[in-house]
């Protein structure tokens, strides 16, 4: 019985999530390179997003390695900060593609700051 219900339940929850995400997704990308149309914009965006992600992971790894080097906690610093860097990279990518609010600007408060986008 429970097994039969599960797919429907999952389906429903997925539809809900889709709806919630669609509301949060920006109407149009406000990317910096969005003004040029066509292939060039795609390449530019790809370079931008990949550099954001790699920078996040790279900085996390470097921080972890540095902490290990000075505190002698090898390999825990590297492990933890590599994962944190991964998180930061994903955050950077979502931020620069306009899916998450910028630093400081939170969606719940966006009405209070007319100065910002």
């Amino acid at each position: 019985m429970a097994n039969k219900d599960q797919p429907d339940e999952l389906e429903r929850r997925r539809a809900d999530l889709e709806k919630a995400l669609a509301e949060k997704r920006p109407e149009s990308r406000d990317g910096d390179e969005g003004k040029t149309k066509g292939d060039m914009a795609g390449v530019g965006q790809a370079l931008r997003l990949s550099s954001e992600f790699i920078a996040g992971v790279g900085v996390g790894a470097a921080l972890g390695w540095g902490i290990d080097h000075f505190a002698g906690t090898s390999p825990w610093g590297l492990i933890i900060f590599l994962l944190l860097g991964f998180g930061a990279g994903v955050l950077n990518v979502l931020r620069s593609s306009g899916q998450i609010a910028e630093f400081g600007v939170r969606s719940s408060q966006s009405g209070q700051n007319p100065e910002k986008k």
Partner: protein
Amino acid sequence: MANDPIHQFQISKWIPIEVGGLDFSFTNSSAFMVATVVAAGAFLFLTTSSRGLVPGRLQSISEMSYEFVASMLRDSAGSHGMRFFPFVFSIFMFVLMANLLGLFPYFFTVTSHIIVTFALALLVIGTVVVYGFLKHGFGFLKLFVPQGVPAVVVPLVVLIEIVSFLSRPVSLSVRLFANMLAGHITLKVFAGFVTSLSAFGVAGAAGAVLPLIMTVAITGLEFLVAFMQAYVFAVLTCMYLNDAVHPGH
């Protein structure tokens, strides 16, 4: 020079200078940085010296670049951010002029070296951090604590935000450097095909037309990239300065 696409990025010492074991030599890179500053300064000075009420063609380019950067900064950092206008405008003109100068054949591209772009990015982030702490004291640290996050995950989120903040100068500099480096190497490789194909007689010369067309097209594209990267660098500078002016909203 032959057919080596990397050769164009080599640093050569023009005037060796050494102070206390440190190398302060005047290199071709330094020469082109000086050329960039002189070219940008001379362009802005000469084109605006006539001060026509109805601007001529060149004068309106200067005025457009001023208004372009001014509106970019005002949009992202508000009127408080306008105190950084000289800073942002200098960075924009320097990067733009360096990118454009690099497109001349046999010229050295200053921004194709990561140390140069990283120094520029550190200057930006240093300004953000110093101004943020001077203006808001420890309130600047609120930048790293998002509101409306459950208390349990706050330490994790703060750590991620800090790593994300530290990765900004890296991605800012890597983007500019990688675009310029990749563009110039591509250009050189395609131009190299033209010479090596035309060594194979008539059929080779006929085939060389294809990479020649590519080279012309990529040169056009590089002009777009040169402007685009200067624009992106300036826009991101404005956005980071916005964090320094209004943190923790």
